[in-house]
């Protein structure tokens, strides 16, 4: 059977509001980088190259969230130029840590950081790419897992649907033979409601998962509350735990609200 005969596909990497960590994952594939360069033409990747090829692109990796009006325009252009668009990371798939602003007043935030907030031009919300354009595949994580990134690129290059398991972190945790930190140590862990992909890193290092891969396919946060409370977490603690890198992902956002509701009446009762 002949080898892949097609013309080398064009790969592009685009960045919106982010820490650059997810695209760095590509450069962190030290063993595969040159092989990848043999398999694709890197058409646009500002972090790594000043060379830019014009679109359309066969595969676009998009990092970061939408936080300015200019971003809104730019992501539409990217979409128009991309055959397959893959969002990478919590910023791009859920709004990232900067979506914490969605719950509060941005102007106030700007004042805390900047003496003269009038210089800062930014939207009130940080939103995932899928809120603005159609996304073909999502890679979760803050940051993404580089093995998953390679698996997705290899799949797309072979016209295969990438297999991105969306079940809980617990499945991976058990595959690794870890001792459950929640059951055996009483450490609160978001593994049961968090999307797999990291390989159950945190439990492997004896800490509870803090949800950086965002909500799993089935996110029963109401059920998990029992275990978190049994492990000594307060409603405030639980609410904060959901409010990190995937704070704006709907199931986590709801989970946070479920907790906040339980705090507020108590305060009222005291007063």
């Amino acid at each position, binding site marked *: 059977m002949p080898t892949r005969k097609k013309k080398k596909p064009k790969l592009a990497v685009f*960045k*919106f*509001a*982010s*820490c*650059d*960590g*997810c695209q*760095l*994952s590509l*450069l*962190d594939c*030290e*063993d595969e*980088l*040159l092989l990848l*360069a043999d398999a694709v033409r*890197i058409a646009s990747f*500002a*972090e*790594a*190259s*000043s*060379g*830019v090829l014009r679109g359309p692109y066969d595969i676009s990796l998009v990092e970061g969230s939408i*936080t*300015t009006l200019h*971003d809104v325009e730019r992501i539409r252009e990217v979409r128009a130029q991309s055959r397959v668009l893959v969002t990478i990371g919590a910023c791009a798939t859920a709004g*990232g*840590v900067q979506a*914490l*602003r969605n719950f*509060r007043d*941005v102007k*106030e*935030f*700007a004042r*805390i*950081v*900047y*003496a*003269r907030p009038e*210089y*800062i031009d*930014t939207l009130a919300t940080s939103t995932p790419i899928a809120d603005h354009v159609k996304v073909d595949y999502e890679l979760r994580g*803050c*940051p993404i*897992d*580089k093995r998953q990134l390679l698996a997705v690129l290899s799949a797309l290059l072979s016209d295969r649907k990438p297999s991105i398991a969306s079940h809980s972190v617990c499945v991976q945790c058990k595959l690794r033979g870890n001792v459950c930190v929640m059951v055996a140590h009483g450490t609160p862990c978001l593994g049961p409601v968090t999307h797999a992909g*990291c390989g159950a*890193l*945190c439990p492997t*290092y*004896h*800490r509870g998962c*803090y949800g*950086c891969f965002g909500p799993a396919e089935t996110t029963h946060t109401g059920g998990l509350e029992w275990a978190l409370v049994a492990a000594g977490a307060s409603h405030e603690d639980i609410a*904060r735990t959901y409010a*990190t*890198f995937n704070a704006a992902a709907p199931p986590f956002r709801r989970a946070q609200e479920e907790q906040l509701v339980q705090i507020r009446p108590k305060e009222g009762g005291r007063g």
Partner: protein
Amino acid sequence: MARTIKVDSLARVEGEGALIIRFKGDKPTAVELRIFEPPRFFEAFLRGRAYLEVPDIVARICGICPVAYQMSACHAIEDALGIRADGMLRALRRLLYCGEWIESHGLHVFMLHAPDFLGYEDAIAMAKDHREWVTRGLGIKKAGNAIVAALGGREIHPINVKVGGFYRVPTRAELSALLPVLETALGDAELCLDWAARFDFPAFERDYEFVALRHAEEYPFCEGRIVSNKGLDIDLHAYEEHFAEQQVPHSTALHSVVRGRGDYQCGPLARFNLNFDRLGGRARDAAQRVEFVPPCHNVYKSLLARMVEIIQALDEAIRIIHGYAPPDAPAIAVAPRRATGHGCTEAPRGMLWHKYTLDEAGLVEDARIVPPTSQNQKCIEQDLWQLAPTLAAMPHAAATRRAEQAVRNFDPCISCSTHFLRLAIERED
């Protein structure tokens, strides 16, 4: 005649910004390093968070140097809580930091900066003619990442850093497994320094104020006094008295200055110049062999300083691993209290200063973070002011490349400061 040179994207830097240089004739009239990376308001998000969450949250400021953020935050919070992670815990933190320096410097030297000196768009194009060097560089970078992944759980945003130490400390065997990779990388790094020393460095010097940490015995990572070649020598608690942050309309990053003096340079070249005597034998010998010795005022040679620091970090990492015995507990016990603490560590790109005020429950009341890139931003602009006449005399494309290279000397991490550089050189002849 008005001449405008415009380059829409300055690549191979972390983040988004633009560069504008305006000329009247050969004279620059404006130099603006425009950073319009959308701000991410970390200091504001940190308010109300528990102290244990801070290292995880601040890591997300920058994917390139998350360990630096975690280290400065831990030190500042530990300072507030009145504890110190000593002994093996301290050694492990240094080891983790070594990993990040190796990785970050390796990335910059081989993938971002060297292509400038050799005239390529990127390391991949460079690899066509210089495959062995790129392969060595990737090997060095990988060695750094291997340390971070082993100790921190993963290369980017490690999950194992905790106020007071770690969540889990490695076994001796886990660390020893790294040794062969590190030994190979160390030998390669020495060869690469010799290779890089032969690059054609533009003759460009300026009378910089170099600022860095200085420690009594060690090449600085996490601790020391803040010193400069212009007489500064302060405790890090006094940082705010001596440094000021200014906001400029063309940037979402704040500019730092030494009060009363102005721009300064931090980062590898500053550390090298101020701490040459603290380098280990292996790194010092390597630097001397290629006749790279302080004081060096040519910022293009910061690439060499990075290479020397890679050697230093690999050498030190190997030493730490040889001397490692797992500590009794992965972290020291911590109890929250109301207090303010300061932490300053040497990120790959330079000093990273944090200050936190905690309430009695250990929730953050106030946070301040001064990243290296905002400290260097003014210095970069000043370099470009001085470089401008040279640029004006050069053909458009070459001028643009040279200006970008000058910015890249600093390995600016715009994600940190708040990213993508667009360069516009406008000339009015």
